[in-house]
């Protein structure tokens, strides 16, 4: 029985992983126009607020942007087209999350490069200065008291 235990555990793990993947990755129902508009509004910055999305802001600008999103979605615009509509007026600043993959890749690349440089430096340091063994001469070693030596004798 013990022999089969790892195989059973692995099989169970794979089954759970496959089930999770199916649940997470299966395509859900097509979002309604209102749901799409809400998601788009959550991705746009309110122009006259501090750090709020258009969906979360009560200002008249945010209300008008939400109205325009509804109008564009109802007119058949894709998500990219809705983004482009507002980016043309405000620039990329209006998007709460950057669309360019460079914005995600560059920080990760910088961290990896930094770790590589640090690792290389630590390795070279270890090779260059191997820790010397603490070799004490007989004269440097602490001597036991004379009484102890006398007992040994």
């Amino acid at each position, binding site marked *: 029985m013990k022999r089969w235990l790892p195989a059973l555990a692995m099989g169970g793990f794979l089954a759970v992983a496959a089930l999770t993947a199916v649940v997470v990755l299966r395509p859900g129902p097509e979002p309604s126009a209102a749901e799409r508009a809400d998601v788009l509004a959550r991705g746009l910055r309110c*122009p*006259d607020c501090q750090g709020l999305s258009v969906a979360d802001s009560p*200002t*008249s*600008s945010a*209300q*008008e*942007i939400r*109205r*325009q999103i509804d109008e564009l979605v109802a007119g058949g615009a894709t998500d990219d087209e809705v983004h482009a509509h507002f*980016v*043309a*007026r*405000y*620039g990329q*600043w209006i998007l709460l999350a950057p669309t360019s993959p460079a914005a995600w890749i560059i920080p990760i690349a910088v961290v990896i490069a*930094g770790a590589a*440089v*640090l690792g*290389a*430096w630590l390795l*070279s*340091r270890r090779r*260059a200065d191997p820790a010397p063994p603490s070799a004490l001469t007989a004269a440097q070693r602490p001597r036991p008291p004379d009484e102890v030596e006398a007992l040994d004798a």
Partner: protein
Amino acid sequence: MRGLRWLIVPLLVIPLGWLLFSGFGRDPREISSPLIGRAAPAWTLTSLDGETLSSEDLAGRPYVVNFWASWCIPACVDEHPVLAAAHEQYTDEVAIVGVLYNDASADAEGFLARYGDAGYPHLVDTDGRLAIEFGVTGPPETFFVDADGILRARQFGPLTDPLMSVHLSTILPSASR
């Protein structure tokens, strides 16, 4: 490799220091407008006087669009005389139009009665659509459109006389005070 050891500190500190230091001098709300160099948005709005005015009416003439509000104090109060003086000096060459940003007409009229009405029209942008077309993030913001209808400059924050001269020179070569 030993030389690299001495490079690590400047390689990390200098770019980071530069990034932080350059950020201190910037207003995080000031963003560059993608509209610069492109055709200015077209508009048709009603003024406080009840007259309908459109960008078509200003075709072939440089104009300045100033988004302001009566609650925008002190910035809009500070720049008000600058706009009035420019209107007086360049009245034949440049049109100036004010646009109310998220403001009630009665409050705007009260502001003009208190601080002076220079005589140029003030448009009522009820739903804020024109502000969105221009990518306004808050008053005061001013846009400078040349005679060909191309947006040439944008002032984020209150105008001063020197700033007005600089921006006017982008749409009116003769403007140098």
